[in-house]
């Protein structure tokens, strides 16, 4: 387990990481999800000991490692950019941490072969990294991380530079690779879909701070504030200003619907309503749904899904539906939203209903 207590990082007068408290456990993936620049790499570097902390403590398995240098912490790090020793063969690359630890040759052989098998690198053990494809190079880096048997494995957007199909395939394999090894796995990514596919626990990062941390599907369905909802959404979540009066919610453009439950009990006033794109659909499925009619600005097809960006008043909305829907750009189209999927946030961003 890795514990962070009030960890901060400052460069000069600028705070890069705000006071952060986290408990990361082994047995599942701990995903750090955030946009580029949110601080995921900075936080990983602090945990790895590569950058100094301005204040706070880090404990690994109960032991205070704040002052311990990177070499003494038993960790592995896999970067975005396929970092391998160019002059060594794949076998030697995977074996390098084991050689530093001065393990007996027979054990090195065994562990390297095991890691190579897991990542389908057996036929390439004698090649050099520059003779391999991108996917194979990254698998070599992963094999090195596995062979080492560290306490903590940090994966910093490791699949970002691979073809999207290869990314899917490797992503499926990753949880199996690390299962049962007892290491704390921390995975940084900027794609919400990756976090959802990997499961485990997710920490949402924004502007140097962790806005929410918990079980991935939990925080997806129940974001505690608007920032968390925004970070964990791709395409961008639909957020618009809504005014509540009595049991009715009304958008700027006049579209209105009836509230019930917790939302109905809120004090009257101005809130932000947020609804995920896949809850805004081009076809009506029940009579409770609210109709949103707007001009289609952009459409995107991604094979299994189609999305449409349309304008309602001065807010851009996104609808995501399955299948291939050829929308006509420039034309008006009706979209339907079920109010039960709406989340309401107060003016300060915290979730109220």
């Amino acid at each position, binding site marked *: 387990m890795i514990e962070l207590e009030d960890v901060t990082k400052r460069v000069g007068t600028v705070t890069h990481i705000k006071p952060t408290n986290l408990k990361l456990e082994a047995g599942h993936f701990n995903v750090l999800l955030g946009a580029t620049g949110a601080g995921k790499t900075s936080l990983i570097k602090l945990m790895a*000991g*590569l950058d*100094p902390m301005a204040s706070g403590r880090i404990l690994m398995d109960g032991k205070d490692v704040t*002052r*311990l*240098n*990177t070499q003494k912490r038993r960790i592995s790090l896999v970067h975005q950019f396929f970092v391998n020793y160019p002059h060594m063969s794949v076998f030697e690359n995977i074996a390098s941490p084991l050689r530093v630890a001065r393990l007996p040759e027979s054990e090195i052989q065994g562990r390297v072969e095991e890691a190579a098998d897991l990542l389908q690198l057996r036929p390439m053990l004698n090649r050099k990294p520059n003779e391999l494809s991108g996917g194979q190079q990254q698998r070599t880096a992963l094999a090195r991380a596995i062979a080492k048997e560290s306490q903590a494995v940090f994966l910093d957007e490791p699949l970002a530079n691979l073809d999207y199909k290869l990314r899917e395939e490797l992503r499926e394999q990753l949880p199996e690779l690390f299962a049962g090894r007892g290491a704390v796995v921390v995975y940084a990514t900027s794609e919400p879909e990756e976090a959802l596919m990997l499961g485990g626990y997710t920490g949402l990062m924004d502007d140097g701070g962790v806005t929410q941390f918990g079980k991935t599907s939990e925080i997806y369905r129940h974001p505690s504030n608007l920032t968390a909802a925004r970070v964990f959404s791709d395409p961008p979540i639909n957020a618009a200003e809504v005014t509540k009066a009595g049991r009715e919610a009304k958008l700027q453009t006049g579209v209105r619907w009836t509230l019930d439950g917790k939302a109905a009990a809120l004090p009257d006033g101005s809130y932000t309503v947020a609804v995920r794109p896949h809850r805004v659909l081009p076809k009506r499925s029940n009579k409770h749904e609210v109709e949103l009619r707007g001009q289609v600005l952009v459409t995107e097809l991604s094979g299994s899904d189609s999305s449409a960006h349309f304008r309602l008043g001065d807010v851009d909305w996104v609808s995501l539906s399955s299948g291939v829907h050829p929308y006509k750009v420039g034309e008006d189209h009706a979209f339907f939203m079920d109010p039960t999927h709406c989340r309401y946030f107060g003016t300060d961003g915290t979730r109220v209903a």
Partner: protein
Amino acid sequence: MRTENQKAWFFVLPVLFLVAFNALLPMMTVVNYSVQETFGNNQFFWEGLDWFEQILRSERFQAALGRQFLFTGIILAIEVPLGIIIALSMPRKGFWVPVCLVLMALPMLIPWNVVGAMWNIFALPKIGMLGYFMNDVLGIHYDMTQDPLAAWITIIVMDVWHWTSLVVLLCYAGLVSIPDAYYQAAKIDAASPWSVFRYIQLPKMKTVLTIAILLRFMDSFNIYTEPFVLTGGGPGNSTTLLSIDLVKIALGQFDLGPAAAMSLIYFAITLAVSWVFYVVMTKDDQ
């Protein structure tokens, strides 16, 4: 990187002593001499800044300084464009690359006094190939021991031969790092070869060129061995560059005070001009 202990510093101590012994102590001695007068017998009299004043006012110093700036100016004006042109003509891929690189490196490997001696013999009127060629084949009177112009031309050609390779190799390194896509885009934009040079190659070579020019400036400004072996500062004092003059005063005349003052002035000028050069060349990067 936070370390548990400071042991690493102890490993640096011996080097620190060495540097102190070889550089700092002599430097302090020079400063010491530059403000005093001695008549031998280890007797010293305080002179204050008199030596500095005297040197700066002396015609001899000013003439040597003038010659030095002229020399460095000509050297830079020839070597930098020539180096760039040669770097541009060198192949970037294929079999000839290592051959060219080795050929370029050869002149820089020769010990400097050997370079001076080589060119000395080379330029002798009856015996040297160049001397013979100029005098007897082309019919041009060429004798560097008698003609100041010939002496100047010879030391310049010698330095160009010796050091242009440095500029070539540095510029080549800069050129090789330009991705092919830039040349492809230029082809698509129908850019002329001059435009390609001006808008793609030159900007990308800027960092290495800065280093090359700075290095050549400092080295040529401080040059001693090659011209001294070649011409001894002659004929007369026509090729007496600043360093040669300094050595004459210090070791020839044994005027320690003025020599020390002159070295400090020399050092200050080199530092100042290098600094100005550097600021000017990197100001665009702000």
